């Protein structure tokens, strides 16, 4: 049957950690630091807006681009929060999560053989989606630069076929983010080489020690950036599948062309809940963010006490921990930790090749008492090695 499958799909490598995931899913009573989504339930006022929409019979399609009120609310939010100016009429597209937005951006821009540069470690979908679009994704390893892309690394990775750069900050799986100065230095190269950047800033609201600086806010970058954001992480709305893309209207229009034939529109109830989230969700976001920050501060100190190495995470809800000194591969470490101490973490190999096998991702998306228990067990585990 395999020969019936399109070659594009066959080109995608199967996930190397499927087995580990199955192992985790088959076990009971474990503590999981492997969950890449908030432990909070969507704030009630947002859920209630969804219920109200359902009661009122909002069960239809919306315009392909998304509800005008939602686009307007997003435009206002971006202006207020980051001083970004996007026209809700033709520069914002509502999507089914950032995942769809990324797929649309890639498909709208990439011709066969054109290169997409992806700094890694990174979220799992960037590479295969580029493969499906017949682009040529290329990883840039940032392991030796504190998990941040540098101008030097970028320059040395660019070829005449390079068209796109994918950025994600604060980052899954490392939690690192970029300062304005670091972005400025990158922008020089980006402009010089006329790259388009797909900037996935889904964790923007979960930035703990500094202001989040959107790439598109830097002078001249609006024309070269597709800004992706969504509701999943900040508002704890992962299951609603709601995101958005902002960019130059020609690109947004091209993305919408694909979106209208493939997805049609994001679910109307999610869009209605999204309006409520954006208009009145600020304090809930602040509370959740504070809680994540405290957990971050705690886990970081505990890991330091264990003399484990990591790059200080400034956002998202992950720490990417170097386990090289244990002599175990990331998979071995994760399997043994799971079997011996019933704690799940994600092996680094999930997030890219090479050095990632020396790392595991720990997500602090559990309540404080659980987090503490998990770290106590990890400490026991480290001692037992």
């Amino acid at each position: 049957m395999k020969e019936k499958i399109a070659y594009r799909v066959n080109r995608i490598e199967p996930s190397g950690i499927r087995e580990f995931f199955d192992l985790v899913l088959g076990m009971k009573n474990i503590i999981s630091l492997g969950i890449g989504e908030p432990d909070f339930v969507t704030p009630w006022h947002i859920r209630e807006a969804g219920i109200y929409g359902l009661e009122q019979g909002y069960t239809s399609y919306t315009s392909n681009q998304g509800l005008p009120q939602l686009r307007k609310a997003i435009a206002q939010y971006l202006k207020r929060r980051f001083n970004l100016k996007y026209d809700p009429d033709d520069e914002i597209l509502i999507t089914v999560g950032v995942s769809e937005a990324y797929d649309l951006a890639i498909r709208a821009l990439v011709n066969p053989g054109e290169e997409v540069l992806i700094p890694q470690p990174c979220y799992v979908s960037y590479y295969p989606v580029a493969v499906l679009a017949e682009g040529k994704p290329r990883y840039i390893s940032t392991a030796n630069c504190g998990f941040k892309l540098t101008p030097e690394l970028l320059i040395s990775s660019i070829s005449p076929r390079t068209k796109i750069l994918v950025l994600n900050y604060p980052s899954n799986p490392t939690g690192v983010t970029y300062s304005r100065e670091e972005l400025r230095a990158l922008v020089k190269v980006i402009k010089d080489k006329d790259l388009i950047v797909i900037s996935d800033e889904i964790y923007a609201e979960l930035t703990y020690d500094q202001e989040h600086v959107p790439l598109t806010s830097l002078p001249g970058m609006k024309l070269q950036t597709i800004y992706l954001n969504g509701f999943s992480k900040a508002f704890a709305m992962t299951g609603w599948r709601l995101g958005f893309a902002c960019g130059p209207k020609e690109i947004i229009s091209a993305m919408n062309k694909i979106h209208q034939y493939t997805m049609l529109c994001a679910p109307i109830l999610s869009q209605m809940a999204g309006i409520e989230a954006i208009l009145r969700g600020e304090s809930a976001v602040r509370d959740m963010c504070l809680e994540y920050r405290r957990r971050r501060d705690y886990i970081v100190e505990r890991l330091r006490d264990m003399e484990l190495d990591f790059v200080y995470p400034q956002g998202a809800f992950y720490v990417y921990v170097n386990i090289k000194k244990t002599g175990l591969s990331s998979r071995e470490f994760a399997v043994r930790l799971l079997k011996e101490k019933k704690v799940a973490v994600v092996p680094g190999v999930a997030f890219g090749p090479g050095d990632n096998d020396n790392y595991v991702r720990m997500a602090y998306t559990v309540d404080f008492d659980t987090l503490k228990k998990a770290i106590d067990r990890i400490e026991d585990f480290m001692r037992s090695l």
Partner: protein
Amino acid sequence: MKEIIEMLRENARLTAEDIAKILKKDVKEISKNIQKLEKDGVILGYKTIINEEKVKSFKPVRAIIEVQVTPKRNQGFDYIAERIYKFPEVVTCFLVSGTYDLLLIVEGEDIHKVAQFVAEKLAPLEGVKGTVTHFLLKKYKQDGFILTKSKKNHRQTITL
């Protein structure tokens, strides 16, 4: 101090060591601060929040009582409030605005004990003009905790 209070208010099981880690402070300093908060009466105690809906053996009867009182010259409501809140049956006593003055929560072993307290102790007090007693029938939510539904986790145990 503010952050210590905030954190303990949310989770009284946090140890001085936990808080020290979160705030990147010395454990001794945090312990001292907590002791000071206790000494100054900012922190009054640490209790466990029990979902009494799920405990069969011990369930005190509770009544919420509205009390209309006459404030005393030069002392306002404080004098009569003190006369009332010193009864151990009174677990909560608030001065409120509106159609009555004091809002009490009174606890007793059974309905008769509470009724007896109201009839024999509370109502006859000089300065008490009238009482309205509401027996508490069911708790849905308390101190931010929803009591009628158990917490469920719908998340997958591992996701990227």
